[in-house]
């Protein structure tokens, strides 16, 4: 039964138009998140489920309100009118939600050519699907336009993110051509500007070492470093194309190993004259299976550096000795830093002070030196040493290096100490391993003011696998020695931590349980006192990521 008189045709046209606007705006909103996930379908799907990204409001509006009225509309034409109204309101609301999420974004959508192409294809898909639904509903099972609209809206709202992924996959050949062109442009620009390129890799410590080295070198001459953890071919290409300027004398490139040959490829893009290898460990074990493979993949950097006649700095303490020894005996130019007496730069002692890390080092050509950097965590000692050795090998006097280190910037959310009035915050939100957790706990003692309390706020660690109970038990015991008040979020997830803490804690200490991070946060807001030191372990101090609310 179709009602064909004028107002409903008007409603249909209005709904179709609004549907188009909705598809466009919602596609754009999803595209923003898709872009943040670097157009990676797997990561985007994870975002969708982990952050409640799928549409609820518009679909429910359409289903419940529209469906109800549709069901009742046989014989009651005014109910059908109500159904149309519900659809239109639902669409308007959906458009509003999409726009809100676009406007309130901390990292707004950047309408690159690629983004435009994906969005255009997304709209084409939306239009095609809508057309199919109308055709199907009309010819297959003759019923009203309202039903078709209703189905189309729900399908559009649910399919929007998948259309983006589909569009992205379909556009892959185009992207590959564009990528190849960008890569060639970056290569040419590097040849033309010819900055001194320093490559850094390692299973861990490379990002910190990079930022320390960038800080030291930039006190001597304009320096560019790849930002954050950008370490892929396309990431580096983009930095070269967008940020590298003629005045940059040094260009520090973090290189990620994504399998054998990947670092060699990065070295062909940006041929380094100096290399830094911070550690060979098990971080990428699944990708490589064997520690030898990890070693060889990382040392592709040293090979490339040696080819251009340069030197590679290696952290001897974090590289398996038997593998390194063979390389060293090959006669390749290396500078070793570490605790061993053979090292060119030797660590004599490293201490954690309230003002940061203090280390005593001895260098073959610099004598005994005391370095101090306002960074926290003793693991920084090796990062500082590697950066110092690199800067020194470039001709920077040790006095200038020491001066620059005294203002080295902390890394965000990694044992980052922030003083807010008389309250000290240790923000270790990005940490995900038990040894980092332990460093944070030890730091509580060092940063505590005389009358202050040591407060821990944590949901525990994740992804520890079969070691979950055991590691949390150890951490609970350690926390009992370092913490006065433990705020545990979702305590039922880490019973061994709770039990160990309760069993070992001194009588004054207490453990508070919270179901949500937000509640623990509110407790802090209400109860923090001057002199307190608060450790945020493996969670963010503020609620960063709200669900988009579609």
């Amino acid at each position, binding site marked *: 039964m179709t009602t064909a008189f004028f107002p409903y045709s008007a409603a249909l046209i209005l709904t179709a138009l609004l549907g188009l606007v909705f598809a466009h705006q919602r596609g754009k909103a999803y595209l923003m998140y898709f872009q943040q996930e670097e157009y990676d379908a797997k990561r985007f799907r994870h975002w969708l489920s982990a952050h409640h990204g799928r549409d609820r409001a518009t679909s429910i509006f359409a289903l419940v309100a529209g469906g109800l009225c549709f069901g009742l509309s046989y014989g009651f034409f005014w109910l059908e009118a109500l159904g149309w109204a519900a659809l239109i309101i639902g669409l308007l609301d959906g458009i509003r939600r999409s726009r809100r999420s*676009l*406007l*309130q*974004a*901390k990292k*707004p959508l950047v309408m690159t050519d690629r983004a435009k192409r994906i969005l255009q294809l997304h709209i084409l898909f939306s239009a095609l699907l809508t057309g199919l639904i109308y055709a199907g509903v009309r010819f297959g099972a003759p019923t009203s336009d309202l039903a078709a609209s209703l189905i189309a809206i729900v399908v559009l709202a649910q399919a929007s993110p998948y259309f983006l992924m589909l569009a992205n996959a379909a556009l892959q050949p185009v992207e590959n051509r564009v990528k190849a062109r960008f890569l060639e442009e970056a290569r040419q620009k590097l040849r033309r500007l010819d900055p001194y390129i320093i490559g850094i890799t390692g299973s861990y410590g490379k990002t910190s070492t990079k930022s320390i080295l960038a800080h030291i070198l*930039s*006190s*001597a*001459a*304009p320096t560019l470093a790849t930002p954050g953890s950008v370490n892929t071919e396309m990431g580096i290409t983009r930095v070269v194309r967008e940020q590298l300027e003629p005045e940059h*004398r040094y260009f520090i490139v973090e290189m990620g190993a994504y399998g054998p040959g990947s670092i060699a490829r990065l070295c062909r893009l940006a041929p380094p004259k100096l290399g830094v290898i911070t550690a060979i460990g098990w971080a990428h074990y699944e990708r490589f299976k064997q520690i030898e493979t990890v070693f060889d993949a990382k040392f592709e950097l040293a090979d490339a550096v040696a080819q251009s006649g340069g030197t590679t700095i290696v952290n001897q303490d974090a590289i398996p000795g038997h593998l390194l020894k063979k390389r060293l005996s090959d006669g390749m130019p290396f500078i070793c830093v570490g605790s061993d007496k053979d090292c060119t730069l030797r660590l004599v002692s490293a201490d954690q002070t309230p003002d940061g890390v203090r280390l005593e080092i001895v260098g073959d050509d610099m004598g005994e030196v005391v370095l101090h950097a306002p960074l926290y965590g003793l693991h920084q000692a090796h990062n500082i040493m590697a950066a110092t050795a690199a800067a020194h090998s470039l001709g*920077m*006097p040790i*006095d*200038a290096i*020491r*001066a*620059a280190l*005294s*203002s080295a910037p902390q890394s*965000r*959310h990694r044992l980052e100490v*922030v*003083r*807010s*009035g008389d*309250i000290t*915050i240790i*923000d270790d939100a990005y940490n995900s391993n038990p040894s980092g957790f332990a460093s944070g706990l030890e730091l509580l003692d060092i940063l505590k003011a005389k009358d202050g309390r040591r407060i821990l706020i944590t949901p525990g660690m994740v992804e520890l696998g079969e070691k979950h109970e055991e590691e949390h038990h150890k951490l609970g015991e350690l926390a009992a020695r370092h913490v006065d008040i433990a705020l545990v979020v979702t305590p039922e997830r880490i019973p061994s931590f709770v039990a160990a803490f309760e069993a070992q804690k001194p009588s004054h200490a207490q453990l508070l349980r919270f179901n949500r991070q937000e509640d623990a946060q509110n407790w*802090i*807001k209400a109860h*923090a006192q001057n002199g307190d030191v608060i450790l*945020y372990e493996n969670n*963010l*101090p*503020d609620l*960063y990521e709200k669900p988009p609310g579609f």
Partner: protein
Amino acid sequence: MTKEKLIIAVIFGGRSVEHDVSILTGLQFLDALDQSRYQGLPLYVDPDGQWWTGDLLLKRSLYPHSAETRARLTPVTLPLGTSIRGRPHLMSSQKGLLGNKIITIPFDLMVPAIHGSNGEDGSLQGLLSFAGIPYAGCRPLGAAATMDKHVTKEALKTRNIPLLPHILVEKPAAGTFLSRDAILPQMEAKLGADMFPVIVKPRHLGSSVGVTIARDADGLDAALSSIFRMDTGALIEPLVPDLVEYNIAVMRKNGQVITSAIEKPLNGSDMLDFNTKYRAGSKGTPKLDEAPSDGMASLNRELNPAELSEGQDSLIRSAASTAFDLLDLAGTVRIDFLCNAKTGELWLNEVNSIPGSFSYFLWQAAQDPLTFTDLSRTIVEEGIALSRAEKGETGTATGNARIFGRD
């Protein structure tokens, strides 16, 4: 018939480390304007250098602006090639139904309320002078000279104004390094063998940014290394023991140079650590203390401190007035002095040509008190008079400079 109100554009924000303080200064000035005579026009320069106008700028809580707020502001530019007979105006291009359309927003006088580089340093003033746009406050010379602490001190030396000795260190060229062996002998010559601790400060930056105490040669290296990331020069001065500071504001009213109340900032507020201040409120870090800073006005201070002797009081006033005159300053400037509390010795420290909050609290407490509204009116009227005088006669006929024949 009522006379049309003058439109006063107050420019604030700016590409400067003192961006945030400047927003407060600008908004306070707009708020203080005499509404019966003037109409305020907020003009905000964001940290990227883009200029904006719009009523939403008056809302303090909206800073830093979200994309949503930004969408409701108007991006503007300042055309420089306007005829001197024309009224100055801002320009904005807006999307209309028939392509882009240019709208103009006229004003009569611009009040620079930007602290620090790119605003207080004479660059903005020079630009406005060049374009023939009337503006308030110091002219380019005074603004530039007071921004450079080395030049300020060298100029004031000639007038018997007490000043601390200083050593100027210039940033080494890229790829070369400072040798402390070159600096230490200079310091010894000026400050004596027992020279530490010293104060190290950027040559140009305003406020307390980068000001550091160095207790030994290592500390000096560290301080210089940090300063040379922000500035091309640094000054090394002795650290005054038992330090107290006194600040005074100076301006010209009815042709006379007048001075304000004297303030003593409490608990070393001149050493305000900008780093912790900004970091504490930066994105993502926990904000336990959410009280908004009220700029300079909210700092702890003591007005007209009782311990100042008559001699000290008159030394401060006369030195400040002399500096104001010599450097050809205008608007309200704040001049800061250092004092050894034990010996009572005083030294002129620095001159701020656009002080925070225009130092209105010092004028409120002056012997002849001025309200912020009085102060803003004086600044506006002086600006109009100065700019009018500058326009002068520029025809080529004057002084027989005509080359091209005219009909």
